[in-house]
């Protein structure tokens, strides 16, 4: 079956900064999220996701101003997540200009929020993010707080349950792979896409364009969420052309092991590669 796979730029945000971690920990500052977001929109991203990565610790999402700014200049769908605890929190970010919300911690504590939010704002507005870690026995369990807190909830049954409660999409993150550049966890992603009939977004591990092809061909994912591949490419170009330089600590990208594993690519290169691999996606139209 031919489907159009969405290529989503995911921005993890801490305070005023775009950050990137490994296994969702050890965050490094990359630059201003607004600058990256605008660049990805203009470069042809199909969607943007903002995650406030420290919001869970403080129980509040601090991205409202940034969301409003984005909604004024970016005309593709925007999903916001991190620290959204209640229906009121969800309403606030939607009113600020987000199109969808991504929920994890709050709905694991109280799954009823999914059905309540789906009823109030529409199913398609509600993404449930599942952060999975493979256990020694082979089963996957859901975690919260960027993979720090074990919940005891088994991932497959949880995915089925969130669909039943009315979630519009699932974003499945392999915490084991996240930030490593070793590729998506195909087994995990396939398990989820086979189990549910709502769209699934794969996240965590993409280090080169071949990884995107691999997950698109071997599973029924509707979308892929990318960060390192895109961020490193943009930083590299900014520095090479030495204009509009981003602020942040980029030395690790050039010197560290991560840079050797991640093969940066821009959205045109990614979508061209997918097209020649017979994976349909919206071609880049430059604004």
């Amino acid at each position, binding site marked *: 079956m031919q*489907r159009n796979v969405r290529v989503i730029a995911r921005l993890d945000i801490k305070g005023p900064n775009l950050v990137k971690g490994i296994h969702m920990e050890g965050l490094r500052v990359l630059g201003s999220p607004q600058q990256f977001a605008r660049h990805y929109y203009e470069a042809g991203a199909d969607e943007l996701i903002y995650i406030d990565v420290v919001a869970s610790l403080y129980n509040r999402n601090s991205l409202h101003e940034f969301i409003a700014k984005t909604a004024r200049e970016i005309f593709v769908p925007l999903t916001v997540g991190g620290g959204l605890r209640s229906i009121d929190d969800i309403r606030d970010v939607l009113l600020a200009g987000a199109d969808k919300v991504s929920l994890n911690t709050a709905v694991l504590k109280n799954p009823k929020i999914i059905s309540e939010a789906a009823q109030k704002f529409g199913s398609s507005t509600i993404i449930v993010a599942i952060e999975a870690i493979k256990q020694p026995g082979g089963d996957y369990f859901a975690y919260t707080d960027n993979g720090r807190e074990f919940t005891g909830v088994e991932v497959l049954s949880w995915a089925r349950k969130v669909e039943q409660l009315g979630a519009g999409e699932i974003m499945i993150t392999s915490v084991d792979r996240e930030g490593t550049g070793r590729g998506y966890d195909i087994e995990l992603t396939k398990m989820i896409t086979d189990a549910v009939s709502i769209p699934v977004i794969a996240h965590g591990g993409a280090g080169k364009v071949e990884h995107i092809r691999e997950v698109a061909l071997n599973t029924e994912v509707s979308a892929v969420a990318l960060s390192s591949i895109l961020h490193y490419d943009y930083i590299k170009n900014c520095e090479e052309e030495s204009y509009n330089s981003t602020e942040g600590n980029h030395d690790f990208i050039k010197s560290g092991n991560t840079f050797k594993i991640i093969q940066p690519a821009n959205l045109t290169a990614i979508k061209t590669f997918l097209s020649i691999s017979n994976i349909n996606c919206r071609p880049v139209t430059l604004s």
Partner: protein
Amino acid sequence: MINPDEDHVAIVDYGMGNLFSVKQACEHVGIRAVITADRDIIDASVALILPGVGAFRDAMGCLERMDLILPVKEFISSGKPFMGICLGLQLLMSESEEFGINKGLNIIGGRVKRFPNYFNNDKVRVPHIGWDRISMANNFVAGDSVLHNIRDGEFMYFVHSYFVIPQEKELVITYTDYCGIRYCSAIRKNNLVAFQFHPEKSGPSGLQVFRNFKEVIYKEVKNG
């Protein structure tokens, strides 16, 4: 005399969906837009946009409670430009199958139907969320309409679980294919256009639709 540079387009606020994005898209192309539920402001507008995300029945309920059904219907029959987006297209139909049969605004004869769970033995993922092509209907010439400079097969952003089946096929201006199911993704009837996709979320191509809408308004104001 109406002055298109000063007068506004009204975006109907009936409590459903991301109206902020629609307003931003309007303003990006130079259309002054106000989000409103006020009948007088709607009446005084040069054009009307009916957006919407969510459930059909709830939306009809909201429109009814807020006394907006008549103002919307009257605006459409006045001949001034009207744009429906997503649920704002579905609400125009006579009825919807969402949670039993529910009556719509009945401006376009036809029905709103849910995507099946399977089609040709393939799983149909619902909601349909993503970028898909719009193909121009055979008898439709984009010309100087709202789809001016939009190429046949252009990608637009969709988010929906239901689609419309208008009785008069001549009203359909674009079709879209999802999982092999070919459905109506835009209609036009006189001064009325309505899209299943979200032009306000469809990047540069979507903004082109708003630019075209602005031209339609200008022309209407000049001729009116």
